[in-house]
């Protein structure tokens, strides 16, 4: 099947961003509507990717190929399989919500704000669709630029520190990956094609070195303990939209990288180093869970909760069974919805109170009943309540982990307690109880635009929780294929 859908998904938002910039912030209404139109169009062009996706096929679909840099044999090679297609949809969907969320809140340089998010959306679609390692890398690094600006220009008081930390941490990882990519290019006899690399035979030592290089790149992005410290800073300082994109999509890039690079290129090293990866994941799940418990800042709490949930994802990858891996993927998508929604909820409160401190709130349910209902719902999903998407992924990963080793599964299962503890305790302090102060008393409930944004996410969370089959069905063949590939030694 040949089509230009993937190119459209990448370049439509980027070109649209150019138009938004050209319109400028002076013509605010026209610019906002244009940005929304571009975002919606960007989402609509990704729908045929899901509808036309052949679920029985494990290989790449919607493939586009063109020569890009012949000197280094670099191709503009795009394609999606069951693993990546959902993320393109998720990304384009979240972009629409982010544009809506920044509708009135952003007052300064709104045109640049919208354009930055649209560019970012296109670049991230590029990352998920790229099958050429150089193309992947180029999108991967370029996506740092808009995020750096989003945090730095529209962020909180300590935004400069957070923006630099975010950029340099991530760059550290990706530069090492660049060397790894060059090494693989030479080892594979002059190809940057990822699918070729999956077949390249490698000795154990180079495999381990490559795995470590990729690990640094992707672990920073996920982020895994102990290279997670940039995330709480970035989340706290970023504007709401930035936090949403960071949590919902950017963190997934790292996890996706493991599936596209580390596992299939260095399968033996992956098996060899799996105990290390499982240990790091469990530390993220348990230790970071405790860290989240003591946070006084809502955004920080959700940021730590993200790290903890992403620990679940990496755990699911490295136990090497179908249910674990699929659970991890479901968890990634579900976390995209839930963490995005949680950050939007905090954003709604922050816009009214200009505070993220839990202590400044109390009894919000009395003044904002509609909002409180949604917030509590998302909190429940975040702690993994059955019938929400949060439950499905966690449950599958725990099943997979128990299959792998009972104690690993038991340790992972503590997240159900910890996650419920930190999320619900926060909700209790913020939403319930008596009205804490006059500021809370003056709060107005969410307007229809905010309701629409949160409502759409609530529907997605609920749908995925009750009937996850449409999601797992798409990834089934590709996951199966990946696991078979990883099981075969390349030595």
């Amino acid at each position, binding site marked *: 099947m040949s089509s230009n859908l993937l190119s459209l998904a990448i370049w439509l938002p980027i070109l649209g961003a150019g138009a938004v910039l050209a319109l400028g912030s002076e013509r605010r209404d026209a610019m906002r509507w244009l940005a929304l139109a571009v975002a919606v169009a960007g989402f609509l062009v990704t729908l045929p990717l899901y509808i036309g996706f052949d679920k029985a096929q494990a290989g790449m679909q919607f493939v586009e190929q063109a020569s890009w840099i*012949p*000197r*280094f044999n670099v191709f503009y090679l795009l394609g999606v399989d069951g693993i990546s297609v959902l993320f393109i949809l998720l990304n384009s969907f979240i972009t629409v919500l982010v544009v809506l969320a920044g509708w009135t809140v952003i007052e300064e340089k709104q045109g*640049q704000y919208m354009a930055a998010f649209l560019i970012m959306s296109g670049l991230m679609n590029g990352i998920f669709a790229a099958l050429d390692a150089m193309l992947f890398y*180029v999108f991967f690094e370029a996506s740092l630029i808009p995020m*750096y600006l989003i945090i730095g220009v529209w962020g909180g008081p300590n935004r400069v520190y957070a923006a*630099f930390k975010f950029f340099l941490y991530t760059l550290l990882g990706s530069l090492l990956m660049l060397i790894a990519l*060059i090494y693989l290019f030479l080892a594979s006899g002059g190809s940057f094609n990822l699918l070729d690399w999956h077949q390249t035979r490698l000795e154990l030592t180079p495999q381990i070195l490559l795995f470590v290089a990729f690990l640094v790149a992707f672990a920073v992005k996920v982020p895994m303990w102990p290279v997670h410290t940039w995330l709480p800073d970035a989340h706290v300082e970023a504007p709401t939209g930035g936090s949403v994109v960071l949590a919902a999509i950017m963190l997934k890039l790292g996890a996706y990288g493991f599936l596209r690079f580390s596992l299939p290129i260095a399968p033996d090293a992956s098996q060899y180093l799996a105990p290390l990866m499982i240990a790091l994941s469990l530390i993220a799940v348990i230790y970071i869970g405790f860290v989240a418990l003591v946070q006084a800042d809502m955004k920080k709490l959700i940021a730590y909760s993200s790290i903890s949930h992403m620990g679940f994802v990496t755990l699911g990858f490295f136990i090497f069974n179908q249910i674990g891996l699929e659970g991890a993927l479901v968890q990634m998508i579900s976390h995209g919805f839930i963490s995005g929604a949680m950050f939007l909820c905090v954003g709604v409160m922050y816009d009214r109170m200009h505070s993220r401190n839990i202590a400044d709130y109390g009894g919000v349910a009395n003044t904002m009943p509609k909002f409180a209902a949604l917030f509590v719902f998302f909190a429940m999903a975040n702690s993994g309540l059955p019938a929400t998407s949060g439950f499905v992924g966690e449950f599958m990963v725990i099943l997979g982990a128990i299959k792998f080793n009972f104690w690993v599964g038991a340790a992972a299962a503590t997240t159900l307690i910890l996650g419920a503890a930190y999320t619900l305790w926060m909700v209790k302090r913020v939403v319930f109880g008596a009205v804490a102060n006059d500021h809370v008393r003056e709060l107005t409930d969410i307007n229809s635009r905010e309701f629409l944004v949160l409502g759409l996410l609530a529907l997605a969370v609920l749908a995925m929780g009750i009937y996850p089959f449409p999601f797992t069905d798409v990834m089934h063949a590709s996951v199966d294929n990946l696991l078979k590939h990883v099981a075969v030694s390349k030595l």
Partner: protein
Amino acid sequence: MLQNFVVPDLYPAAPELFLALMICVILLVDVFLGQSRRWITSLLTMVTLIGCAAITYLTADGQSVLTFSNMFVDDLLADFLKLMLYFTVMVVLVYSRDYLAARDLERGEFYVLVLCATLGMMVMISAAHLLSVYIGLELLSLSLYALVAIDRDSSRATEAAMKYFILGALASGLLLYGMSMVYGATGTLEIGGIAQAIAQGTANKTVLVFGLVFLVSGIAFKLGAVPFHMWIPDVYHGAPTAITLFIASAPKLAAFAMALRLLVYGLFELAGHWQTMLMIMAMLSIALGNLAAIAQTNIKRMLAYSAISHMGFMLLALMSGVVADDRHFMINAYSSAMYYVVAYVLMSLGSFGMILLLSRAGHEAEHLDDFKGLNQRSPWFAAVMMVLMFSMAGIPFFVGFFAKFSVLLAAVDAGHVAVAVFAVMFSLVGAFYYLRVVKLMYFDAPTDAQPIRAALDMRILLSANGVAVALFGIFPQAIMSLCTYALVRSM
């Protein structure tokens, strides 16, 4: 004596002869022009450069032709570098015109000296004889000393010129000493003859290697590689910005040609020796340049240290040409170095051009703080500067990334993986100070509220410069293959 005199074939040196003639014409014409009609000199200079370009382009036949008793060579490499050179000098002239006029420095000498320096660089590029290397180098250097001191009332500029002159004289001395040793060992000054003599094994190796050390020192001085970099920050800082722009761009092309002619064309058999020297200098330059740039508050000094690190990167490619007598890496490595220089010149022109754009009569925009809030004063030029900074930092999609990438590829290909890792780690350090410029432009409020005024041609050219840096990043193949083609045809 006289009967031995053969009229040399002048055809291959037509651009140089035309330029020399025009220098005399401009010198004469300018004497009769008042300051109000200085534009005639400016126009004549432009016409001269365009004429040179036309002659070079029309006489480029892809053949390597020696003339002037084998002192001068006209090959495709020379033609390509010369065309780049004319282009660079023309851009320099456009960028610097208003700056010089506002400071009453736009005198006839400026144009004549720039053209003399250009002639010197052309001779260096086409040198096939140690003496023509030296003559070209001296013509360039003496013109530059005078140009640095062109603002004779500025004590800082005079000090810089003095420092440049003394250190430059020392470097010339080293170079001459090295040449005399090479002559002593091989009995010839012709670069081709030297290569032949060494290949035949008749040359005294010890003397040769001693001579090589001095030659490499001389080249390193011109490039500004550590430990011969001392002059760079002071001269870049002290010279009027328009002159800094000139020193920071065009001579890099000539110095690269000199390195290539002497080391690769002449002393290729000694590659094992000079590659080690270049490696040490490259690593020191990358480390020191990037570390010292962080501490700078003056953007000219910052860019000076950044230039040192960039030249280190270029050397990285030059030292990757030969591995254990296996020569198939040559073209790849040297064309990467050439691509790097071309890309660097493009970025350097743009960034110094931005400093000139922000400067006006009575105000030197040479402090980093002068870039504060540029996004609010002019979103377009802030974007141009951002593109340049990210390109210098080596972030895709900009030309600087692909330059770094091809150099790293050459280094890894030659087996220098550890050196490549070292280099990328320091470019991580380097990313910090480029990011700081972006931070100042985008995150901070402006301190300087004056509107940006510049002539239309400068605005257009500077914009085109920024767009070119982005465009050659998205489509890097064109320049890459030109570099490779020029080298292949000239080796």
